[in-house]
Every structure is written in C-alpha cells, then in structure tokens.
C-alpha cells in the first residue's frame, strides 16, 4: 500500500505538467524545475535549519520568478516558430539547468534530514485493514491540494478562462483584450512554482541530485498525454492510474519494467483513444 501511495504521489507531482499541456507546449525541463525545488528545500533545511516543508512558500515565490524569466528570455522568442523550436529550446534548457545544478551543488546526493515528515516516519495509520505511512499520507494530501488549486484556478477564475482562450485562439483572445504574452508568462511562472513545490515535498522522500529530473520528465509527458492535453481531471486520473500500474508491475516483474508497463498502457490507450482519456481534441 505504501508502494502504491508513493507511486501516486510521484505521479501527482509530475502531473502538474498539465499547465504546459494547457498551453499545448512540451517542457522538457519539467523535471529540472522539480529538481530545483528539491535543492531549494534541501538548501533551506541545511543552511537555515528550518523544516523543509516551510521552504514551500519561498521556493514557490522564487520559482515563479524563474518561470517568468524563462518565458520572457527564452520561450517568448521561440513560441511563434515551429513546435520543433519549442521542443529543442526546452531540451537546451534541460541541459542548462542540469549542468548549472552540477556546478552549483555538485553531483552528490543530498538528503533532507530532521524534517517533520522524516520524524513522523514509522507512524502508520491503520485504515480499514490497510497500513499507511503518515508522511506519505501528508505528502499525498498536499499534492492533491496543489492539483485542486490548479483545477480551480484554470476552470473557475477569469485568469484561467483567459489562459484557455489564449491557447485556443491567440488572435481572438487579443481581440477581447487579453494580452497573450502576459498570460503565457504568468502560466510559466505558475507551472514552475507548482512543480518546484512538488519537488520540495518529494525532497522529504528522495535524495536530491542534479540528474534526478529526467525520469520524472518522461513520466510527466506520458501522464499528460494519457489524460489528454488540456484536461486537468484527466491528468489527475492518469496520475493515479500510472501509480497503480507502476506498483502492480514491480510485484510481478523486475523493477526495471516499472516504466515499461506505464508506457505500454499509454500505447494501448493511445491506440484506442488517440486524444487521451479525456482530451478534447
């Protein structure tokens, strides 16, 4: 059960990539932003001796700025071009961020110690005959809250509607007074902040190191496609599905096949429903 929950938490964390799905963009540096969030929590807890969970607000603020900066300096310039230019720009960003992290923090594995979640480890809740670790339960709840906040923001606020309108028809959005570049800049900021917060939560369970991000990026890509680009609830369900598939797979097969079955289920669903589970187009 712990295994399933951990996989689900991972899935939820990377499923926040949906914000790029909403913009019809693919961000190959998604896992690197997650990695920066992990390092942020680690740095916060080792230099300031505060709980890594308290790092969430400052990490979110800083990464919001980083996301905006990435948009204005890089993505705005390639956005009008072909999809290829966007993909290669984010791949470049991936290498840049990863190697910057190596330069800044070295490739050592960093562990967050003494946090609230690690002190709670060992405490299990017994629910209906299942034993669940309390730290993971808290992490899962936090991830769910993030998802809910994103859902409400995109579906229930004027900003979210404006963002959807911009990604559907840029010119029409401009005609009704939406400034697309500003929308995209804020969306990039939000995306970076959300995934970095997820990273700060995951830092309680995994070591932080510069190469930690790539598997998460690949998984994020699959989860967003599985749920359908543009559907937040679809992504949520896909994240749960991926978590369950991963943990069931490792029971019966070598752990190396954990991701293989996630992708096999993507292929299966993708071939039956090419637009993803809940995709609109």
């Amino acid at each position, binding site marked *: 059960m712990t295994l399933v929950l951990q996989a689900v938490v991972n899935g939820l964390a990377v499923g926040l990539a949906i914000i790029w799905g909403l913009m019809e963009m693919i961000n190959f540096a998604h896992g690197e932003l997650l990695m920066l969030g992990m390092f942020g929590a680690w740095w916060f807890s080792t230099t300031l001796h505060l709980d890594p969970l308290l790092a969430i607000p400052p990490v979110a603020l800083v990464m919001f700025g980083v996301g905006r900066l990435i948009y204005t300096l890089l993505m705005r310039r390639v956005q009008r071009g072909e*999809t*290829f230019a966007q*993909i290669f720009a984010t791949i470049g960003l991936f290498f840049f961020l990863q190697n910057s992290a190596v330069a800044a923090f070295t490739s050592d594995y960093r562990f967050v110690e003494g946090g609230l979640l690690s002190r709670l480890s060992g405490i299990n809740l017994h629910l209906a005959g299942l034993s669940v670790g309390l730290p993971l339960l808290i992490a899962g709840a936090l991830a769910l809250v993030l998802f809910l906040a994103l859902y409400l923001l995109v579906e229930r606020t004027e900003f979210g509607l404006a963002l959807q309108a911009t990604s559907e028809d840029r010119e029409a959005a401009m005609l009704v007074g939406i400034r697309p570049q500003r929308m995209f800049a804020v969306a990039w900021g939000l995306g970076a902040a959300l995934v970095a917060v997820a990273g700060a939560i995951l830092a309680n369970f995994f070591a932080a190191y510069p190469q930690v991000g790539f598997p998460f990026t690949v998984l994020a890509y*699959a989860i967003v*496609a599985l749920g359908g680009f543009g559907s937040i609830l679809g992504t949520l369900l896909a994240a749960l599905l991926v978590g369950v598939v991963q943990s069931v797979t490792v029971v019966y097969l070598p752990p*190396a096949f954990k991701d293989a079955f996630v992708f096999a289920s993507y*292929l299966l669903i*993708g*071939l039956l429903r090419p637009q*993803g589970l809940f995709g609109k187009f």
Partner: protein
Amino acid sequence: MPAPALAAAALIALALPIPLQVAGYSYFVTVAFLVILNAMLGVGWNVIGGWAGQFDFGPNVFFAVGAYVAALLAVHLALSPWLGLVAGVGAAVVICAVLTWPITQLRGHYFAIATVAIWMIAQPIGATWELINGSRGLFLPLRPATGPLDAVVSLRFPGRSKALAFYYVILVLFAVTLVLLRMVDRSKLGFYFRAIRDDQEGAEGIGIDSRLYKVIARSITAAVFAAAGVLYAFWAPSWAASARCGARWWAPCC
C-alpha cells in the same frame, strides 16, 4: 551545396586525420570518428523529423537493434561485420515497420510520446534479456587480424591504426548514406514526405497514404541508425584493455 564547396569539404574530411595521426594525436582522430558517426545519425533523423515532420524520440532503439544483431551474428556464427551490417539494417527496418505502423495513427505530440514509449519499453528488455547478456553487454570475441584484407573484412585493426581505419570506414558509410538520402530527397518519396509534413489532409486528398509513408520514412531513419550502430559495436571493443576476457560493448543511447 555548390560543387566547389562540396569538393573542399570532402577534401578536408579525407585529409584532416592524416597529419593528426602522423603527429600521434590519434585521440583527435577518434573524436573525428564520433563526429561523423553523430553526423550520420543526424542526417538519418532528418528523414522522419525534417522531411516527414514527425517528432521521433526513439530512433536510438534501432541503433541498438543494429548493434545487437551484428554482434550476436559475430559472437555465435563468427560472421563478418559487413554481413552483420546487412542483417542489422534489415532487422531494424522490419522491426521499425512493425512497431511504427500502429502508432502512425497518432499525430503530433501523441506520436512523439509513442516513440518515447517504445524506447522506454525497449530499454528494460535490453537490460534484462539473457540472450544479449542483459546489462552486462555482449562481449565480442577478440582475435588479431591475419592480414590487411582480413583486417578490413572483419574490422579488426591493430594498434593505433584502429582510429584512422574506423574514421575512413565511417566516412565511406556516411558518404553512401548522403548519396542514398539525396536520391530519396529527389525522388517521389521525398516529395511525399514533405507533402505529409506540410499538410497531411491535403496530401491524403491527392492520394498519398500518409500512414504508409510515415512508416517508410521512419524505417529509412531506422536503417541509418542501425548501420551506425553496427559500426559502433565493432569500434567499441578496445584492443589494448582487457584482452583476456574480451572487450565489452554496450548500446549508449538505449
């Protein structure tokens, strides 16, 4: 590219490694070998990515297929790498066609992720399959070449001549690839690929089967990757090191 520039580039490519080799910098000749190898992968990817306009993240799977097929034939049947090249390319094309056909109904991002999916499924298979020795990698049998002809036939070059010889082998392979792809570019096939990239519905409207030609485009890419993979497999064993247990090679991308 205008003819004089092409001739100059060819001349530089042919002459460049010789002074380096003579001066004893065979490391740089090895770097040049890897540069040409990567250039070959680049022009190969250009077929599916550039001409047909489909984002393909998983051609490295076929690099591994070519390398493993040729290496298996060399280990078990003592087959020459040149026959291994033919077999590896053939196997990669067949496997690519079978795997790509179902996913060609996906478009854009979804096609791209499907190629990632195939790569991610191939990876643990390669790492755990006992036939190809799992993640330990295959060990090619080592024996010295009996003469210059045998060296060329079996791609076993002694000592420091190895870097230079492999450089020219990959250069020839690269040139052949360029000529063949130029023919594809100028044939109907090339026009079909670009028509699908620019306007898939329009291309289908004038009777181009977009799924079939996407499969053909990706199979051409797979063939180029497999050819490079075969050569890489026979280059990777190091003659100096670990002569007792045979040298180890592994597929770097996959």
